[in-house]
């Protein structure tokens, strides 16, 4: 057991910290889930890309620096420590990219990844549908084969598409074999949202931002080159992405440690409060627990052990910790908790944002089923 970082890792940390100190936008950018904010965020992400910090763990040819998982973690810790903005490119980088690395052709990798890293193309996830939320396998949107032009025609409706109103591209699952049921006969497509037949309608989220979209597809043409993996194998391809979303890559411990530290600052700014002190301590310990569980998992990942259903435990823990951290902040703020402005207004916005955690990427109820059935081996029914 060796709990120290190497000199190279420490150098990398120093480089990240120094660059972020100078470059993180002050004052903070407006929400990236508004049209104006999204544009401002893309500028920031461009700067990050130019410093080769946008996708540190990717190969150099696609804009990364071949960083190890440890370096990626270090980058994330520094990123959140510096109070840097939420990444509006994250659904592409964290959800689509791992799938492209695993299933994409060299042509797809070369075409998609660099523009994703630079923010030139932005990706949203088109999985949920009005009747397919927790029950993802109930997808009804169709992909009809069009042999005449060597491609497919997509029709249907996707919903709860995060930042769908601002993104340029969508990745999603469509039913390519109308006779197959549930998770059979689905295909994974990459869709340019500027294509003819696409209509996007922004939907306002709890926090007032237009962070969701409904995407309507009416006979939208997609070429064979934009099928990811094999036709009708979309479920297996998508499940790799699901692992990423639930697991390590989306929610780095740096985020919750930074929130816990802000909570401690808030606690101090309000004067000692014996009624809430213990809850602050407990929340901080939980953020530490999350960090060390991540180190444990990363060590195994580095040694080639792939996390399976364990990632469901991670998703439940971070999403409920995030809610707890913000609830506690609101309790500390007392009568000022409802305010959206001033020094502390970010806590209420953050609370609203945190409330999405236990719902998206598979509700925590579904995750607990997965933990019971696949980690503990309890009977499905």
């Amino acid at each position, binding site marked *: 057991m060796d709990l120290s970082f190497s000199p190279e890792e420490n150098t990398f940390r120093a480089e990240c910290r120094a660059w972020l100190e100078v470059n993180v936008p002050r004052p903070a950018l407006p929400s990236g889930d508004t049209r104006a904010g999204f544009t401002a965020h893309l500028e920031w992400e461009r700067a990050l890309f130019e410093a080769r910090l946008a996708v540190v763990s990717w190969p150099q040819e696609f804009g990364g620096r071949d960083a190890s998982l440890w370096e990626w973690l270090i980058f994330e810790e520094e990123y959140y420590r510096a109070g840097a903005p939420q990444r509006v490119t994250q659904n592409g980088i964290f959800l689509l990219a791992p799938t492209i690395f695993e299933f994409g052709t060299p042509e797809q990798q070369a075409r998609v990844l660099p523009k994703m890293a630079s923010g030139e193309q932005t990706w949203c996830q088109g999985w949920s549908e009005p009747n397919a939320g927790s029950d993802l396998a109930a997808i009804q949107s169709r992909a009809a084969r069009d042999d005449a032009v060597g491609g497919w025609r997509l029709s249907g409706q996707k919903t709860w598409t995060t930042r769908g109103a601002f993104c340029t591209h969508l990745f999603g699952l469509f039913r390519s074999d109308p006779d197959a049921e549930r998770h059979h006969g689905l295909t994974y497509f990459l869709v340019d949202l500027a294509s003819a037949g696409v209509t996007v309608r922004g939907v306002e989220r709890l926090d007032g931002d237009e962070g969701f979209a409904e995407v309507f597809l009416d006979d939208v043409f997609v070429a064979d080159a934009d099928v990811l993996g094999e036709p009708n194998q979309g479920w297996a391809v998508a499940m790799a992405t699901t692992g990423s979303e639930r697991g390590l890559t989306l929610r780095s411990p740096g985020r919750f440690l930074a929130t816990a530290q802000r909570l401690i600052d808030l606690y101090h700014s309000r004067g000692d409060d014996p009624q809430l002190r213990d809850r602050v301590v407990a929340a901080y310990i939980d953020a530490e627990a999350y960090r060390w569980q991540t180190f444990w998992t990363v060590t195994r990942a580095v040694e080639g052990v792939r996390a399976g259903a364990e990632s469901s435990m991670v998703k439940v823990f971070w999403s409920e910790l995030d809610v707890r951290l913000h609830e506690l902040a609101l309790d500390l703020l007392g009568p000022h908790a409802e305010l*959206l402005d001033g020094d502390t207004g970010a806590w209420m916005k953050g609370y609203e944002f945190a409330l*999405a955690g236990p719902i998206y990427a598979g509700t925590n109820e579904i995750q607990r089923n997965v933990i019971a059935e696949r980690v503990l081996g309890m009977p499905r029914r």
Partner: protein
Amino acid sequence: MRFAFTDDQIAFRDAVRELLEKECTPAHVREAWTNATGRIPGLWEKLTDMGVVGMLAPEARGGLELTMVDLVLILEETGRCAAPEPIVETAAFGVPLLERADRTVATARTLVPWADTADVIVTEAGRFERDAVELVARPSVDGARRLFEVRGTPAPVDGDAIAAAFDRAVVGTAAQQCGLAQRMLDMTVEYTKERRQFGVPIGSFQAVKHHLANARIALEFARPLVYRAAATLDPVHASMAKYKADEAALMTARAALQCHGAIGYTTEYDLHLYMKRSWALARSMGDGRLHRSRVGAAIL
């Protein structure tokens, strides 16, 4: 001992509910989010005409000379529809304090909701007349709660009278939280009966059932404390009522959102109107810390 309401009290409550179901729909509340006042045009007059605003005022001053027990059921209804009106502030706090029913009152310890549309403002600092204050608007997460910092030179007020008025407002706010919890629970039960996933209504899943059963239990054990406090007007009873009603409302809001999933997370759906009100009220008229401290000082 008879711990129940009279038929007359229930009938009055039902009449107010009927009014509010027509005049304070989700669409009305949405309007208040964006209009100039944060209130529903005409609603205050209708409530005044029914006698709701002046329930606690002497008959000679235009009131009904009723008690907090009569009023508490009505305030629960104003919570149930998230009425964007200073009704607790006026009917429970201000009217008996001023002993008259014709002035709208806004009050809070610090940030005062609907202060711009009130005739009289009362804060910890004292009493302000409408035309002698400077108001600085601050945005609440609940768009229909127009909050203001109040600046000016207050007139002193009688501490005991204010304390009694505050306790009535605490009970009234607790009653609103019960109404909000009931509304969010009802909406969610209906939604989970209709919404199907995996081939069945999601309300048939045990996890969903247990979330909502827990919310229902919390409400079941909060309400009697609210009604008891309305009858005794004891400050410690008021604090117990607020503490449990806040807990029920916050727990129900969490359960409601979680059981709705993504649709509950949009502002197109109505749940957020009630959820955000419950978040704000939980920290208004004394938050959990204050009320637990008051109870603790009495029992420990």
